């Protein structure tokens, strides 16, 4: 299945801003993070089509996944 992955802030460094990528059925958000070598502990917000999602969410065809790092400084 094809997923659009959007990355933000330092997640883009040495990766990409947005890419359409192919994954096997049953792939979770955590699987995508692992494949992209993103530490799940550094992920702040996760959106699927603009709605918050959890790491164990199983992705579907044509999902648009957005991953944001924790930006907790002030």
């Amino acid at each position: 299945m094809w997923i659009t992955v959007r990355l933000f802030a330092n997640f883009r460094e040495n990766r990409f801003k947005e890419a359409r990528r192919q994954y096997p059925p049953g792939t979770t958000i955590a699987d995508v993070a692992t494949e992209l070598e993103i530490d799940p502990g550094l992920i702040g917000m996760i959106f699927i089509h603009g709605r918050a999602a959890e790491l164990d969410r199983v992705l579907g065809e044509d999902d648009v996944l957005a991953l944001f790092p924790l930006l907790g400084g002030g």
Partner: protein
Amino acid sequence: MFSKQELERYSRHILLRDVGGPGQHKLNAARVLCVGAGGLGSPVIEYLAAAGVGTLGLVDDDRVSLSNLQRQVVHSTANVGELKVVSAAERVAAINPNVKIEPHPIRLDAENVTGLVDSYDIVVDGTDNFPTRFLVADTAYTCRKPLVTAGVLEFYGSLTTLLPFETDAGGQPNPSWRCLMPREPDTAALTCSEVGILGAVVGVLGTLAACEVLKLITGVGEPLIGRLLMVDIRDMGFDVVAYYRNPTSPVFGQG
């Protein structure tokens, strides 16, 4: 009625279409609570004071340190060691003596947060930790107060405006903070003191947060409701990402 001095001080607002005298009167009457008088808080406090926001509540229990001064421009070298709310109040008095400052040199907790948030019209959050960010966001929602909230790290920042107790033009309820982050992070988030921050990044995000507050008070334009602004200073990119209400969010009592 504005005094002669006020007419001159605020003339560029009074001249400005969609703000004008009525908008300036709204600014003069507004009460804004600034949570955090650090990096993000610095431009927020300075621009809201310069704009003539009538009352600024400042919450911060920290003291000014030398390592703050690379980005926390509301404080000066002479203020090192002072409470940040005292230091910031001095700066506000120098910018605009018409502004009333209410300093709160406390750490927000479940006991004190509601009374404080409830006594202001708008809350702007520039704290440096997620537990306080969640506490402020949940309380602002309960107290039905608009919240402008920003975060920064390294070369990056985020900003959004929350009015989850209102509906959008289509009658749909606006999203809350918990629609962005359903729960607090399991792990402690990296901080600026651990990984650093380009000083001017907080100036960009704090200034944008001040713009949102000024827009909310005057009713000008479209606030960042249901939209998350992501700022990438490293590559100089600005992205606006739409997000939506999650009806199963814990804050709505169904999570």
